[in-house]
């Protein structure tokens, strides 16, 4: 059983207007579960995911009491040890799928390379595995996509390639940053089915960053709601509609609904007090 614990995480950027605090002292844990993170655009969701894997680019600074994986503090590890964690135990699907793929290598070559890193296998064996992985994420034409370059993929195909690639090392933890935002609802359900299966059957821990409230509420177990670098509320996912924080309530109210048409969508009035309040603990 893998257990990730983040204690008092900060991410800061020096800017021309002083230090900008993108993540401000948040704490949470992740077990064998689907943990959703929702929240304001710019609230620090992606930076939280990246900080866990030490993927914050300079001049950004990360600090925390600890970020521990099964008791070992990731912050105390060497670059090499972290690379090993990244390649094998924790994977991340980035918010910009095409940007994270190598533009001058075909999809198939990149995916084969990831398989090869896991140990010696014959090329044809690996090739079959890659095609299978593409089929699993509902790619209609896996052999064409195998030979395609990233710019030849549609938005949603890029996202699915990224997901397939990040699942290759069979990670204990997957951090997925808006992994299905470019997928039609039908393909989205198939991809979620794969992730769900990994959580339920293999005990994978999943951090699922998303703006889709109804999806998070039906797919996840727990949800952290972030605002201005902090966690303002933690909910049981299927009780998200009963959330009490005014920001979360506001989010729920601004959703367009297919069944009840509105002339105008409700917008939020943001209270400066929300940014000042202490972070809520997401430790379970």
């Amino acid at each position: 059983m893998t257990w990730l614990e983040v204690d008092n995480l900060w991410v800061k950027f020096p800017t021309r207007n002083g230090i900008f605090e993108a993540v401000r002292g948040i704490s949470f844990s992740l077990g064998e579960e689907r943990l959703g993170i929702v929240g304001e655009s710019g609230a620090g969701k992606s930076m939280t995911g990246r900080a866990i894997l030490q993927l914050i680019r300079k001049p950004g600074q990360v600090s925390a009491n600890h970020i521990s994986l099964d008791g070992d503090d990731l912050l105390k590890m060497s670059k090499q040890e972290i690379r090993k964690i990244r390649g094998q135990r924790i994977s991340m699907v980035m918010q910009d799928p095409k940007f994270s793929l190598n533009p001058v290598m075909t999809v198939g070559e990149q995916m084969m390379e990831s398989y090869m890193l896991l140990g010696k296998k014959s090329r044809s064996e690996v090739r079959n595995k890659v095609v299978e992985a593409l089929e699993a994420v509902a790619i209609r034409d896996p052999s064409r996509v195998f030979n395609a370059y990233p710019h030849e993929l549609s938005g949603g195909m890029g996202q699915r390639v990224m997901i397939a690639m990040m699942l290759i090392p069979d990670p204990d933890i997957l951090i997925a940053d808006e992994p299905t935002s470019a997928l039609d609802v039908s393909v989205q359900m198939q991809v979620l089915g794969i992730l769900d299966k990994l959580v339920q059957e293999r005990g994978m821990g999943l951090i699922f960053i998303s703006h889709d409230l109804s999806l998070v509420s039906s797919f996840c177990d727990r949800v952290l709601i972030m605002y201005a670098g902090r966690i303002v509320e933690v909910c049981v996912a299927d009780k998200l509609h009963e959330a009490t924080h005014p920001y979360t309530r506001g989010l729920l109210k601004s959703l367009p609904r297919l069944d009840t048409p509105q002339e105008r969508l409700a917008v939020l009035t943001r209270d400066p007090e929300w940014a000042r309040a202490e972070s809520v603990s997401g430790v379970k």
Partner: protein
Amino acid sequence: MSGIVIKNLNVWFDGAEERVNAVKNTNLKIVQGESFGLVGESGSGKSTILRALTGLIPTWSGEMNVTGERLGRHRTRQFYKKVQMVFQDPYAALHPRHSVDQLLSETLRLHGFSNVDRRIEKLLDNVGLGPTFRFRYPHQLSGGQRQRVAIARALAPEPEILLLDEPTSALDVSVQAEILNLLDDLRRAHKLTYLMVSHDLAVVGHMCKRIAVMQMGEIVEIMTIEQMRDLNPQHPYSRHLLESSLGYKRQKEQVPQKP
């Protein structure tokens, strides 16, 4: 008056080994001032239609007309004053070494606007970004902030037609509500025409009166929002899509346990 008219449009890509027929025999008529939705399977050719309209794909046949003007191989600057597009992938659409200020001022100058300073402030404010974002570079922005910069840039030339490819998919729903309200206001005030791609059927339902459903390069059905709301489409794929939109159903229920 017609906004966008597409007749027998085919768009293809010639790969090393095979040809990809991304859009096949497509017909579409969008009147001026209408907001039209395009939904469908991932990879079905939605972005390709928008990109063909803006002149980004040379390999097409058929007919495309915009505000009564038939489009040829090349697009003029006047075309881009009239037609703007918000790309699906905002990162690729923004030049990595240009600040938000450079990006917007260039677009404004190119189309001959004066008062550039004031306009930039207004544009940023419109998309909910404060003045502190003006001198940021794309890598210093979150996904949703980038998307809002891309929307601001598309609005900058005050176009008559907006091609919107998943314009709000990277935005939290409160910012999404603000942007959708803004787009609605602009359309009403200036009779703008929108062609909008989205996977979020509720968003399309809110913004559009009619939608086309695409699968494998073809439009399989054009329906009204009322039909969509009643979950009463004709084509089996449209029905499947609508059913999938009702939320995730767990294969088996299991309460996660603390170790």
